[in-house]
């Protein structure tokens, strides 16, 4: 099976659906799935945040978004960090 990627906006009390605090992607593959968040180091890193939310953690809300929306958040984080894309 080809990889299937779902993107999520990360929202908590200091952010909103219009301006999410971050972005996470769940990659489903033959062997299972892995989650990665786009980090302040401007790279995707493995993350357990979505899994924690699925296990009842209420700190962050995760909203499925399109790839374009996800790339918009990535671009905003890059821009605000002072890095160019």
């Amino acid at each position, binding site marked *: 099976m080809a990889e299937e990627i779902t993107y999520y906006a990360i929202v908590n009390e200091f*952010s909103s659906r219009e301006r999410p605090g971050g972005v996470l992607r769940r990659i489903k593959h033959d*062997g299972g799935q892995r989650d990665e*968040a786009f980090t302040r180091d401007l790279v995707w890193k493995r993350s357990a945040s979505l899994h924690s939310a699925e296990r009842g*953690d*209420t*700190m*962050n809300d995760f909203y499925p978004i399109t790839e374009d929306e996800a790339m918009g958040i990535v671009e905003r*984080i890059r821009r605000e*960090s002072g890095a160019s894309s």
Partner: protein
Amino acid sequence: METERLDEADALVADREPADDQGVATPPELRDQQAYRAEYRATVEAVYTWDAAALELRQTWEAHETKWPSPEDARGDGDRNLNPEANAEVERGCGQIREIAENVITPAMRALESEDPDRHLVGLEHRLKGTERLKEKVAAALEEQPDLTPGQALSAVPDAIRFTLSYSDEQYTAGLTADLERLTACGCELAKPLKNSWESDQYKGINTQWREPATAQLFEVQFHTQASYEAKQLSHAAYERIRNPQTSDAELPELEDFQRKVCAKIPIPPGATDIAYLPRKDRDG
């Protein structure tokens, strides 16, 4: 697990009542009783099934640990460390949280517990999240949400102070609903809609986050049955491994599968999947 056995006579009545070959309609109150008895009987049977399943699931986990030796715990190391300023801020915050927990929120929760002898606070010794785990959570938030300051990240952690109320299956829905009202009546504000995970395949229970009115400190209250609480404990090691970045990609699906197997065996209390509760600001429009 101690559970009241369904009375045989109830079972016989429940079996007999729906059959009316004279075509006489069953009165609504009798239908309600029949439905209740059927639901109750299913719950009692499921609770006995859970006890047997828990034994088997513990053996399954032991086999998993033999197959996959525990990975080194690398959380809190390397790039997930907080910088010295953030570390100091979180340390200070932890001190304040401990003080509020011990002087304000724990006494209030004990008072709430005393209002109904049919359910109890469980795991009270774990009401304070450990400082290292709190730092780890703040570090993850700062890494994944670059706009956050350390103070914001710490204040957004809802379970630095957490409590669990455990109910019998048959009293779960009514007892929980009464406790939501009690928490609201003593001035606590539900910070976001309750999280009902009874239909989830990775976790079962209801988690809520509240704001204590005098201090504005967030705290968490989880609502469980005995089985869902035991299941949470039983699958905790699997969850820890899922969170550990050193856990191999190959082990992850087996860990998630184990959590699914545990959850599949938890009896769902009558009415639990329909429970919803909104913060006052959302209820009032």
